[in-house]
């Protein structure tokens, strides 16, 4: 159910069809998960420090609104990795390698940023494209292994998370143009390669969020409207039937992984090429041998958004929102980790909110049935 296809192409929409559609039930399930997660989070805050809980919780809920720019900035990479995971999942592939693809995307973008001297109008665009390319390569390899040798993509892409991360750390540390060893981070990127800012004061938000949202909508169109999306979902639902219908399942697996990788790679590029709110500085990469968290957050938002591109956009913005709020909760003395607990609970609930949702729907049906005596059964059932 989680990866269900949803929108009826019918023009004969009515409210009954909408409430019955799986997109709607995914949506209500996500809301329920969030609601329960929030309650649980509040309980934890109560236990941790009862007297500060209300103030702290208010920050969690509303704090993000004051940092709306940052909410969008931090949402951008998660949207991309979420789309990457969700897109692959539509084909029945679990792209746990979004982290590695994201890191490769970062590196390719950084490389173009530091090592190539291009006119300022196109430098950042080339860097973004390079990031996409980097991610694509890192998605292509597990895709090929899966398609041609039937090696489980989960295993390959976990391996490639590590390979990618160590490789990038090594290459950055050995590159003097990019790396400042005393600071243990990369240098500031030249202005020409930074993505144009959206101009919100004191925030890093930039054009990237617009790209991410547009790409999400684009993916939605691809999945819903194109023959490729049709093949992709058919393969995800039943690869035997896809094969029987003459679809090139193996090629499609590779293409899907390449696209998924490209999406995550773009996430990396958009994250690293962001302008900094502080003049003269920019985002930096720290080679500290750690797998990028963005990939795993991507899995979480893909789950919360039921692999639906639009759902993923909203899920990412929401997660980013409460993360910002969680940071602010430290103003009243909470550790920011508390918000990670809340997020974890939300994700946890979203996994079985679908089930609770079905129960809720049945309850509603029962309540409604008393008014609705005319059975809805004759049409077409004959």
């Amino acid at each position, binding site marked *: 159910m989680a990866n*269900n*296809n949803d929108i*009826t*192409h*019918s023009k004969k929409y009515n409210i009954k069809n909408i409430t*019955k559609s799986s997109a709607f039930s995914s949506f209500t399930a996500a809301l329920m998960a969030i609601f329960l997660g929030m309650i649980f989070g509040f309980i934890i805050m109560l236990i941790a420090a009862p007297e500060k809980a209300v103030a702290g919780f208010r920050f969690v809920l509303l704090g993000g609104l004051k940092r709306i720019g940052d909410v969008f900035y931090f949402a951008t990479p998660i949207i991309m990795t979420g789309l990457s995971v969700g897109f692959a999942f539509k084909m029945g592939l679990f792209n746990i390698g979004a982290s590695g693809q994201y890191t490769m995307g970062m590196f390719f973008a950084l490389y173009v940023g530091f090592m190539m001297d291009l006119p300022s109008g196109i430098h950042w665009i080339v860097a973004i494209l390079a990031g996409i390319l980097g991610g694509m390569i890192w998605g292509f390899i597990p895709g090929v292994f899966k398609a041609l040798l039937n090696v489980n993509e989960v295993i390959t892409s976990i391996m490639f998370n590590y390979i990618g991360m160590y490789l990038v750390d090594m290459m950055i540390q050995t590159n003097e143009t990019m790396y400042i060893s005393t600071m243990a981070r990369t240098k500031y990127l030249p202005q020409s390669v930074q993505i144009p800012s959206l101009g919100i004061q004191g925030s890093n938000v930039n054009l990237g969020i617009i790209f991410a949202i547009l790409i999400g909508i684009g993916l939605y169109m691809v999945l819903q*409207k*194109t*023959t*490729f999306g*049709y093949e992709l*979902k*058919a393969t995800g*639902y*039943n690869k*035997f*039937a*896809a*094969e*029987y*219908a*003459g*679809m*090139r399942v193996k090629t499609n697996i590779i293409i899907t992984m390449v696209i998924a990788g490209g999406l995550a790679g773009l996430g990396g590029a958009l994250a690293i090429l962001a302008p900094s709110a502080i003049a003269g500085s920019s985002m930096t990469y720290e080679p500290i041998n750690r797998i990028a968290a963005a990939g795993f957050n991507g899995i979480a938002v893909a789950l919360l958004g039921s692999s639906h591109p639009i759902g993923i956009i909203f899920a990412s913005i929401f997660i980013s929102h409460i993360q910002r709020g969680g940071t602010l909760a430290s103003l009243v003395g909470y550790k920011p980790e508390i918000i990670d607990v809340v997020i974890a609970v939300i994700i946890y609930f979203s996994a079985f909110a679908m089930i609770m949702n079905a129960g809720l729907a049945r309850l509603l049906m029962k309540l409604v049935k008393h008014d609705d005596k005319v*059975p*809805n*059964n004759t*049409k*077409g*059932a*004959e």
Partner: protein
Amino acid sequence: MENYIVEMLNITKKFPGIIANDNITLRLKKGEIHALLGENGAGKSTLMSVLFGLYRPEIGEIRKNGEIVKINNPNDANDLGIGMVHQHFKLVDIFTVLENIILGVEPNTMGFIQKKDARKKVVELSEKYGLRVDPDNLIENITVGMQQRVEILKMLYRDNEILIFDEPTAVLTPQEIKELLQIMKGFAEEGKSILFITHKLNEIMEVADRCTVLRKGKYIGTVDIKDSSKEELSRMMVGRDISFTVQKEKREPGEVVLSVRNLTVQSKNNKNNAVKNVSFDVRAGEIVCLAGIDGNGQTEFVHALTGLQKSTSGNINLMGNDITNASIRQRSINGMSHIPEDRHKHGLVLDYKLEENLVLQRYWEPEFQKGGFIKFDSVRKYSEGLIDKFDIRSGQGPITIARSMSGGNQQKAIIAREIDKKHELLVAVQPTRGLDVGAIEYVHKQLVQRRDEGKAVFLVSLELDEVMNVSDRILVIYEGEIVGELDPKKITVQELGLYMSGAKRDNIKENNNGE
């Protein structure tokens, strides 16, 4: 007052968009075999699921020995002595026969399973009723027929006295069917009561005492078999007269459409060849049937023919094009339509809507896409046409999810899709498997109509009646080889049976090659 062991009174069960059971009453006497007959989607399985506690009815009550009982789950049913052999077996493949039988009621001391007593009981039961099984064999290693015996033993092991058989013969060979019917009779003599769901009228006539007929969710009636006839039952079931013989005119076959030469295909399960050096032709305007007992290489042959599997050697020629190594799409474009054996595995994307399934072979054609974008208006219009033309029934028309449709209508959808597509050769693999007489008549009509339109039809069937009635020419396959090429008008069923069981064979390679 008759002695009814189970009564289901005025059962009504609704699903969104459909009333699956509409005020149905079924009374089962002690010690009888009671058949439950109805078309696909008539509500038989729903009714049995209600009795077995899988669904709860909105209206109606169930009585056992005259007392009202509540059955909320299969455990309740089991406590009341009701057991069921499901159409799709519920067995753990990697467990042994014995482990499966005791599953859920494992005899144990302090949590340690005591298999010894269980084994004794199982062996006793299997000897008593002639249900031959090896208790230590793994389920994945035994035949479907044996798996069914395991399911039956499960019921007996639990001392069930009301036995539900949900289309038990659909998966069996003719020999196994005979044995099963004998076993069922034995149970009835023992005083066990049997509910037998089927749509095979011959079997009902052979074993059942009474028969209850459902049609489109409604109760039609209950008849005594000894006062009834096949014709009456089928009329009750379908609501009109059904012809059991296939009407077809004599027709001279035309050009060769499909030509298979020396085809050898490896088995799916081991390294042996499942298909050995097979050669034959199929011409325009004839129905050639590949007959044989299940597991003699039919599946592998069809997979090699349709491109789902690679052949080892030999070649396949369709309309003058060598398609031995062509892709599935290429074969389709060259004029091959394929009604697959397993409609759930290959034939449909069950989570797709009906309309999306109806264009599964054609979505890439200019009629349905432009620049990679699917033309949903055309898809809708096309599928509405097909639904109309082929009388595909479903809850919500084109937007029905295929999974929610009845088996017969799923098959109709596949047939509609494959027949409406441009084709010269129709490969139909067990196209009537699991269908009721009305639907079977429909499928046979469609096949004959293709033939009359001058298409070549290649039919693979396990059903002797179908082989004899529909085909113009019979090829018998035994252990991967064609052992006979027969004319259905000139041979008897018995003779055909001898070929199928390998007791008789012709050397037909020469005259088949000699074009």
